[in-house]
């Protein structure tokens, strides 16, 4: 199986099949990333399309010494950040609402549990509300770490920050979420 860097080089050389594999391999992750951050189905679709167009056009400029995930999520994070800045007034949808809007996953990485208990749904709702109040780059960092499972080093490369800045954002984001959810009353 070809790795992402090789697929990018082949794409740059005009191999359409290589790009198809990249779309197939990263489509669900990228789409989920945008959906969670912008919380609007149409916007997430637009951003997913934009991202892959940008990736396709820039294939010739990609240098394989940079890890592909960091490269991919650098573009994606910039797009998400500028979208979140532009559109603070637009209505967002909760992830449950998104699921109910006929938005079924074909290849869910985590299993969807239709029998989820009321407590679990309530917990997720509170978590989402807490997330929604975080600054945009804190949410991006959390999603890159927890949702996309990028390492601190990859997140630093994707967000153009140092590893210690990423570490500090993740701690502050988690403290804020805990406080918003009423779990931790105060900070030292």
């Amino acid at each position: 199986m070809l790795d992402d860097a090789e697929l990018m080089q082949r794409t740059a050389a005009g191999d359409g099949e290589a790009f198809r594999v990249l779309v197939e391999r990263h489509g669900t992750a990228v789409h989920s990333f945008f959906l969670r951050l912008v919380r609007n189905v149409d916007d997430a679709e637009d951003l997913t399309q934009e991202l892959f167009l940008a990736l396709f056009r820039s294939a010739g400029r990609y240098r394989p010494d940079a890890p592909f995930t960091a490269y991919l999520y650098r573009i994606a994070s910039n797009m998400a950040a500028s979208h979140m800045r532009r559109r603070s007034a637009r209505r967002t949808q909760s992830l449950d609402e998104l699921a109910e809007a006929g938005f079924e996953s074909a290849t869910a990485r985590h299993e969807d549990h239709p029998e989820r208990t009321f407590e679990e749904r309530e917990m997720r709702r509170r978590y989402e509300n807490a997330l929604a109040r975080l600054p945009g780059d804190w949410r991006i960092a959390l999603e890159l770490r927890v949702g996309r499972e990028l390492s601190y080093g990859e997140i630093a490369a994707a967000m153009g920050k140092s590893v210690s800045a990423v570490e500090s954002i993740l701690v502050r984001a988690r403290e804020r979420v805990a406080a918003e959810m009423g779990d931790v009353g105060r900070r030292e």
Partner: protein
Amino acid sequence: MDCRTCRILISREIDGEAAGADRAGFDRHLGSCAYCASFRDSARRANAVHRAIPERAPSPRLVASILAATVERREIPRTRWWLRIAVPAAAAAVFVLGFWVGSLMHERYGGESASTLAGGAAGLELEYLDEYPPGSFGDILAASYEGGME
């Protein structure tokens, strides 16, 4: 160990990043600081909630649209397709015209110089058609036929 350092280590622990050297100091602080112990429980729970959010695959329509705007455009070049028909057609037209002029001249004047003159004209036309640069008349024609320049 202070609370700030402890919370950084809790966050790193949740993320599976290397925890640093002072494991004993970390455990001692957690044992004596209710706030950090509570933060650790809360952050772990929140992490589990985040991880349980289902992934959403892009719709087949979206994937088709991405491919149509990228690889399929490259695989089925819009302009060149038109030129592949236009150039031989133009060449054939010039050849037929040249042949017709040549036979007319032959009929009127006889001899061989006339038909080489017409053949030379046909060659000139072909060269011109082969060489016109992108963005020239042929591309504009092709683009207008396809419904717009790229």
